């Protein structure tokens, strides 16, 4: 392929016809005349890696990472805390100081309040930061307006790991034996496709061990289990028969906080002692403020080769907020997208040709304390359709529940969090 493309370019560059068509010089990236300042918003799976790889690939680029908190807690593996496999979330918590020191990244703990794409500036609670390129990796925000009466302090989402996760676990611990947990799953796409089903497994495991006679009712807005269906059903039957009551096509539209009940399309009512509502989602708040969200009003369209916004020049959107074609909204995807984005910002700033993307996703889900399953994929851009697609054959799930995959999953989380924090 390389040779053929080279010939193609020769052909474009060679003829006088090409010059008259204005093609001369198109064989390489346009000469870059801008500065070398990159601001990265978000210190999670995407932002940390974008900042780190920018500096690893070109130490002449000045990188500022802006994160609202002084730490970041991983969503992946936080279900294991709900299940009781993890006693706390300390092993899922990273700081940014070592990353900053090792790679010469300026880390600023501040709230981003605005982005001025024309002026190339970011306004924060700690002043204004100018950029030449901006990477936005803000995760998700909830479409709470689609659930009437929703109050996360009463019915936690626990879909951003942290105090919400602790609240949900406390509610589970306080529940009487024989109680009912209700879990509401939003319509896809949402962050972490297999996550709600892993959570179902982990809560069922907790109930089986600590709250005899209890059960979990799963109200799924989707017509069926979104990810790893066969494996989850197998695991549920093997370990949690009679504990999990899975109900597809049940969209929660309203809650009754006083009576601890949820309403489905305003008709059915389901009561619970503990109610975990994962609301429908959209791109992180700042993406909406900055005008990066597409016509659907939810997610940010990007150039699949670079992750540059198709709406605002020099702003790149990675992770859950972006529309990354076939790549799922996962931590691993955000990590992989960050590297693709960093590679091509470096290329742009050095007037080099862009590099076609190659991305990976691997998501592990725990079914029990000792068994996990995975879904994998290798991704590339289909240039005709200009969209990210899986490389045929690379996407697939585990053949069965696996103790070995649980062991590998533990090393995955260790590696990816180490990569983000050092």
């Amino acid at each position, binding site marked *: 392929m390389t040779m053929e*493309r080279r*010939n193609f370019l020769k052909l474009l560059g060679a003829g006088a016809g090409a010059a008259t068509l204005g093609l001369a010089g198109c064989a390489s990236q346009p000469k870059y005349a801008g500065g070398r300042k990159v601001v990265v918003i978000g210190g999670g799976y995407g932002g940390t890696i974008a900042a780190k790889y920018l500096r690893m690939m070109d130490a002449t680029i000045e990188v500022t990472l802006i994160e609202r908190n002084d730490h970041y807690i991983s969503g992946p593996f936080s279900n294991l805390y709900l299940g009781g496999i993890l006693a706390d979330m300390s092993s899922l918590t990273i700081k940014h100081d070592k990353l900053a020191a090792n790679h010469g990244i300026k880390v600023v703990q501040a709230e981003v309040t605005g982005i001025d794409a024309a002026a190339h500036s970011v306004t924060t609670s700690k002043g204004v930061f100018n950029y030449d390129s901006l990477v936005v990796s803000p995760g998700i925000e909830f479409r709470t307006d689609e659930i009437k009466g929703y109050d996360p302090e009463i019915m936690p989402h626990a879909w951003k790991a942290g105090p919400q996760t602790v609240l949900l676990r406390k509610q589970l611990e306080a529940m009487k034996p024989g109680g009912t947990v209700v879990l509401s799953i939003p319509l896809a796409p949402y962050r972490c496709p297999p996550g709600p089903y892993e959570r179902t497994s982990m809560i069922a495991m907790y109930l089986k061990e600590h709250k005899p006679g209890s059960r979990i009712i799963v109200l799924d807005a989707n017509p069926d289990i979104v990810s790893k269906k066969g494996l989850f059903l197998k695991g549920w039957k093997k370990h949690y028969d009679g504990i999990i009551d899975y109900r597809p096509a049940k969209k929660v539209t309203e809650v009754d906080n006083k009576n601890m009940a949820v309403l489905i399309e305003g008709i059915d009512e389901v009561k619970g002692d503990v109610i975990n509502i994962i609301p429908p989602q959209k791109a992180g708040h700042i993406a909406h403020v900055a005008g990066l969200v597409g016509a659907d009003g939810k997610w940010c369209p990007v150039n699949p080769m670079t992750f540059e916004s198709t709406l605002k020049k020099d702003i790149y959107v990675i992770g859950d907020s972006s529309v990354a074609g076939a790549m799922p909204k996962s931590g691993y995807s955000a990590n992989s997208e960050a590297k693709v984005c960093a590679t091509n910002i470096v290329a742009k700033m050095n007037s080099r040709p862009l*590099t*076609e993307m190659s991305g990976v996703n691997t998501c592990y889900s725990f079914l029990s304390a000792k068994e996990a399953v995975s879904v994998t*994929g290798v991704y590339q851009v289909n240039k005709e359709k200009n969209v990210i697609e899986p490389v045929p054959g690379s996407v697939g799930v585990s053949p069965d529940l696996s103790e070995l995959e649980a062991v*590998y999953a533990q*090393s995955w989380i*260790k590696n990816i969090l180490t990569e983000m924090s050092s």
Partner: protein
Amino acid sequence: MRRKWSEMALALGALVVSAAAYAVPPSAEMLSNACAGCHGTSGASAGPSMPSLAGQSKAFFVDAMKKFRSGEREATVMGRLAKGYSDEQINMMADYFAKQKPQGQGTAVDPALVAKGKTVYNEACKRCHLENGKEFEEDTPIVAGQWLKYLQIQMGEFQSGKRKMSEKKAEKVKSLTSADWEAVAHFYASQK
């Protein structure tokens, strides 16, 4: 193919170029960076069951990936992921990781087992796993300094028959007890 590209150029003209800036195919770094989510930055693993790829033998890497891809070597996720790459891309990644600096993980090991493992190594392993496992021969991997847990999993799979051995290896290790294998794992893990 050459003809097809020239036809495209004539037919689409400026449109082709203006629609998408020219990009080169995925580089070795682009391909290899995506592995780091599991195998660590530059292939230096921080997870005890995940092998480090930094400094690994190119021939071994290529052989392992192709065996994963064909299903000849049993795997969890690697059998699926390896299907995402061409021979050329596997070679590029092998080159990339071979050039990275190996990082000993400093796993806690049992000194008594390390001593015993050294004896077993000298008797059964050193002809192919050269220099205490730091060097390689043909398609053998560099095993020195790998995580203990990773070595234990792989050695367990050799013993159970889940991971196939070459005839040469099978002959060499046929008299080893499981205690011998365990000792060699500690010995390799102890190497810096």
